């Protein structure tokens, strides 16, 4: 079997990197005080997901394009979500002059 370009990189390396990226993004979502920073964290998480998907596709089932379709859709959704989310943040900023998610607590008891 030819080794090709991925000679020497076991699958789990990618998975660990993706996991790390995911967790970093997670920290950004949970621990940041700025809504835009939160969204940045979300984008990082989505990227991690993509890495996972493509890695699995490449190592496990490279012959089917199913995973790639999934990846494509993740791209699309990430873009749409980023657009809408940022629009919302801008609108909120205009009205309340703040992008602190902690201040947006109208849903409290």
């Amino acid at each position, binding site marked *: 079997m030819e080794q090709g370009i991925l000679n020497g990189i*076991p699958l789990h390396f990618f998975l660990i990197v993706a996991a790390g990226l995911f967790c970093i993004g997670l920290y950004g979502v949970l621990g940041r005080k700025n809504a835009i920073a939160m969204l940045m964290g979300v984008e*990082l998480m989505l990227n991690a997901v993509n890495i996972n998907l493509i890695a699995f596709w490449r190592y496990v089932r490279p012959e089917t394009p199913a995973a790639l379709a999934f990846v494509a859709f993740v791209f699309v959704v990430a873009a749409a979500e980023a657009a809408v989310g940022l629009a919302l943040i801008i609108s909120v900023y205009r009205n309340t002059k703040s992008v602190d998610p902690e201040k947006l607590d109208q849903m409290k008891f």
Partner: protein
Amino acid sequence: MTITLQTIIFALLSVVVLGSALFVVTTRNLFHAALMLILSFFGVAGLYVLLESGFFAVAQVLVYIGAISILFIFAVMLTRGMVAMPRVNAQAQLAALVSVLLFVVIVVIVNPTALSIKVLPGASERVLGGIPWQFTTVTTITDSYIKQFGASLVDGSAYLLPFLLAAVLLDIALAGAVQVARERRPAEVLAERELMAAEAAEEQQREQALDTAPETVLAADHH
């Protein structure tokens, strides 16, 4: 495990991705964060290249870096004026803990060390369903994977419908974002402000009533 050139390239790319990501989530300066985000995306694109999916590497650059990051920069510009803002919120430490814990769990599942095998025998099988993940060798792929992918996107029995739905989603998102973030004319702004003020006043009244005579308020709510 042999260390090849690919391994080193991989290591470098990983460092870029993770490092810039770390910077993104820890910096106070949002503009710097956006730029570091771009760097991270680049690193991810490189990883895609390494995974022999050049299409997606290019897509990544086009979409994420070319569009989303620009959006972020716009947003950062439009929401200026935040000075002396703390970086992290109250639960940041807990969040960090949870993140680390999650990372550990995933790593354990994905790459069990001798220790974790002792502690969690069979965890990987249970989670991954017996897929032999310890791939060290891969099969080669042909270049027609893109063709296959493209064909599947327009194939009625494959992913045509999701494809179309995704298009619709983008349309809606576009329209929605435009409407939500639209610049308002002063009159509009004033009307909106009045409405908001009225709602705020009503809310305050409600708060007061709740403090003094909760029953009437709750009863009124039932209607």
